[in-house]
């Protein structure tokens, strides 16, 4: 492969369990994009979303152990995590150890007990989506698309974790996943709740709270006519998919919105088989939504813009929007 790129890789627990479809589709897509991921030996849990609020120092130390092992692997300085919680915890620990001397020395003291150490800032922790968009690039991705996703309306769901560290993307209203989906040929709907919370582990503590948060997201995606929700976080995928029927029961709603990983949709657009992408393991079947691919394309291109209502005021043009 002409543009082969190698990364140090932290899979996290989800990708080996509930989100194995994320893992499978990522591996399949990586082959297409020429990305090689070298998994860290003997990695441990990142602490997920809870441990930091229970006991901060062990939580940081737990994460720093992974950073230390990643450096020992002597691979790329870019450490990739596909899970948003892992990404946030690794990046935060790396960043805070650089910023706060006390934390740095305490964590290193803890690491020393296991014969390890970590020089803060030695690694650059990145999310899989960032690697795909920044390093591979949308143009390169476009050349791989053999089956454009035209006809399917997707709601890009970022979740609340990926937007927390400063990464250069818009943290209030990110659009990079939207752009990737457009590149794949999908119809992207506006999804104002794109960074709202999915409930996280509240499903285990307070169903009512969690299900209401999930309901809001499903309602919003459905209001905008989304056929599917596309996400980049195993937690988000699990909550919206696995608890959708529970939500329907609790609120008397009737949502059937499949929740897919962006790598699965990339794989489909690249013409890979559904088997290779872990499709079929989702609880809300993606079949009906995926069947729409390639159906309404022609009609859409022929659609003429509606004539302007004489009284209506013009909408602002979005052509020059964004950065000046």
């Amino acid at each position, binding site marked *: 492969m002409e543009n082969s790129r190698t990364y140090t890789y932290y899979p996290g627990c989800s990708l080996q369990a509930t989100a194995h479809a994320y893992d499978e589709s990522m591996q399949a897509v990586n082959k297409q994009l020429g990305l090689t991921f070298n998994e860290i030996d003997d990695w441990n849990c990142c602490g997920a979303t809870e441990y930091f609020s229970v006991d901060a120092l062990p939580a940081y130390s737990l994460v720093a152990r992974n950073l230390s092992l990643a450096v020992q692997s002597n691979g790329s300085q870019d450490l990739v995590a596909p899970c948003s919680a892992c990404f946030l915890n690794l990046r935060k620990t790396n960043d805070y150890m650089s910023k706060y001397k006390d934390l740095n020395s305490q964590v290193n003291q803890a690491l020393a007990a296991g014969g390890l150490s970590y020089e803060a800032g030695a690694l650059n922790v990145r999310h899989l989506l960032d690697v795909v968009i920044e390093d591979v690039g949308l143009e390169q991705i476009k050349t791989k698309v053999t089956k454009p996703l035209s006809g399917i309306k997707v709601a890009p769901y970022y979740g609340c974790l990926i937007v927390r560290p400063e990464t250069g993307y818009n943290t*209030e209203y990110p659009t990079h996943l939207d752009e990737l989906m457009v590149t794949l040929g999908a119809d992207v709907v506006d999804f104002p709740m794109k960074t709202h919370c999915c409930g996280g582990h509240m499903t285990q503590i307070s169903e009512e709270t969690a299900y209401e948060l999930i309901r809001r997201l499903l*309602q919003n995606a459905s*209001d905008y006519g989304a056929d599917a929700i596309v996400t980049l976080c195993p937690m988000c995928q699990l909550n919206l998919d696995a608890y959708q029927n529970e939500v329907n029961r609790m609120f008397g709603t009737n949502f059937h919105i499949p929740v897919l990983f962006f790598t699965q949709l990339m794989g489909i657009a690249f013409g890979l088989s559904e088997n290779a992408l872990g499709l079929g393991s989702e609880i809300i079947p993606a079949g009906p939504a995926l069947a729409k691919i390639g159906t309404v394309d022609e009609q859409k291109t022929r659609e003429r813009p509606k004539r302007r209502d004489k*009284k209506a005021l*013009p909408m602002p043009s979005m052509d020059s*929007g964004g950065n000046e």
Partner: protein
Amino acid sequence: MSEEEKIGVYICHCGHNIAGTVDVEGVAEWAKSLPNVTVSKDYKFMCSSLGQELIEEDIAEQGLSRVVVAACSPHMHEPTFRGACSRAGLNPYLFEMANIREHASWVHQDDGEAATEKAKSIVSGAVSRARELEPLEPFRAPIDETTLVVGGGIAGINTALEIANAGYKVILVEREPSIGGHMAQFDKTFPTLDCSACILTPKMFDVGNHPNIELMTYSEVEQVDGYVGNFTVRIRKKARMIDVDLCTGCGDCWERCPAKVVDTVYEAGLGYRTAVYRPFPQAVPKYPVIDTESCIYFKNGRCRACEKFCPTDAIKFDQEDEIIVTSVGNIVLATGYDLFDSRRLPQYGYGRLANVFTSLEFERMTNASGPTDGKVLLRDGVTEPKSVAILHCIGSRDKNTNDYCSAICCMAALKFAHLVKEKTDAEVYNFYIDMRTAPKDYETFYNRLMQEGTHFIRGRAAEVTDAARKPEEVGKLIVQAEDTLIGKQRRIPVDMVILMAGMQPRHDSQEVSHRFGIGCSDAGFFNESHPKLDPIATMNAGIFIAGVCQGPKDIPASVSQGAAAASRVLSLIGKGEVEIEPVRAHIDEDRCSGCRICNNLCPYNAIDFLEDLAVSRVNPALCKGCGTCVAACPSQVIDGQHYTFNSIMSQIEGLLWDVRPNGEEKVTFQKTEPV
């Protein structure tokens, strides 16, 4: 020669500013040990009349031939002390200033010892340099009595009128087809709610008809050369495609024009205009322009409707840009501001959610001559809102966009709240961080709005969505914010949202600042000469600034600054001539090889090549003494007056007084006993 110089050194306490950190008595005592120093004293305030008299007395009694004052920046008080030397009969260019405030005490406040050592080095450098100074005479040049004012908003209009009314010529250059600026877009002005057009248009009319004002609209300044009193400017008058000598402004052309486009300038995107257009009825001048980008004839060669219907044959499709080169004595920049682009904050929905409006759109909406004839309506153009949220600080006080306060938005938001209440039955919610209503009578207006029943919620809005959670939110825009006064999250469903977008420097303000040779801040606002005592002049003599191009401000402040700039220009004109610093480059023509390297490097085009003699020569009127050619000359035959090779090398040697080559021991200061 220099061995015979008698140098006086004066160390200023500047109250606690310097003396609080630097051991001023110690430095003064130490300076006595420097070669040629005859007198060395410290004093509480050297800039006071007593401090200056101290210098004058010592020159007279001790026969000082050089004076060094170690105090603040030469920007502040170099002229003061040069004046003192002059009065005592010493050539003012034999004075040298050492900056031990900005360069030592202020930046090393936590380390007095280091600051004191640094102050000694600075003083030592200044003394060494003073030894090499030569007497110079300033140039005198007459002042051209014509003034260029750039920008025809309220600040520029006021500047132009003040100068013109005093009897002097003004050239007023405006980029848009009409003068008036942002103020012409407003309906009401805060806090008095008087009609913006009613107070502005008489002034616009005066500008258009003033015998002393030459108005150039649809024009831009492309190049500026020269120096205070004697600038040469190159102005591009863009082709209007209209013969203004024939045009009567009747309007037949734009009434017949079939090309309609959204007017993103005057109507702020809320209304339409034709390809041939006059921005608004009271425009000055009254002549339209053809926007060639949207004109059908310029796109595909057909149409010419305006030409057919023009009763005076004033449409000229073949008109070309005109270049005017003229000389002016002073320049006032009043180039105004751009509105912050709310699309940069998509979480507030502008451009995505139809009923989110910007502040400028709302100004147009409430304007009786605007797209809705002054009615407050939703984007559909028919429905009146029953509730309106006004979001403060959009693109202001936010480190992600602009970290400064835009100064006017709180008051404008109050004005909007009042207008909504006046024109509709809607409930109004203001989401603010702090209410900033400082100037005269503004707080009264705030109190009035609270009496009127506007809701104030202290908390920057987090987002605006149409994602309903409850039945009463369906079909509404929901504003989510943390109400920091009650410590709770609030969701308020409304029909309309107004974003109080902040003021930004013009998108090309950096470029303009380079063109006029003035500085601008990181944000892009033009730098004033002094933030408190001279917010009108710039570091480039003869170039003044007024209005929002210098920083966010409201109409009264812009008007005041415009008048102040006019007064500064008039006092220069009144003097008749300017003294110009004799800090110039000089080429030793006998040794010049004629390589011409300096010719192209000179940023002021001040170096001519004399073909007959095959040497380069500096035009002292254009030279600003920047030293670029001095450094670049491969034959080292260019000398900068007042910054000669010798004076700079001596200053460096002086600065390094305690360093010896070959690792010899550092020379430590031995305090001499007072006599």
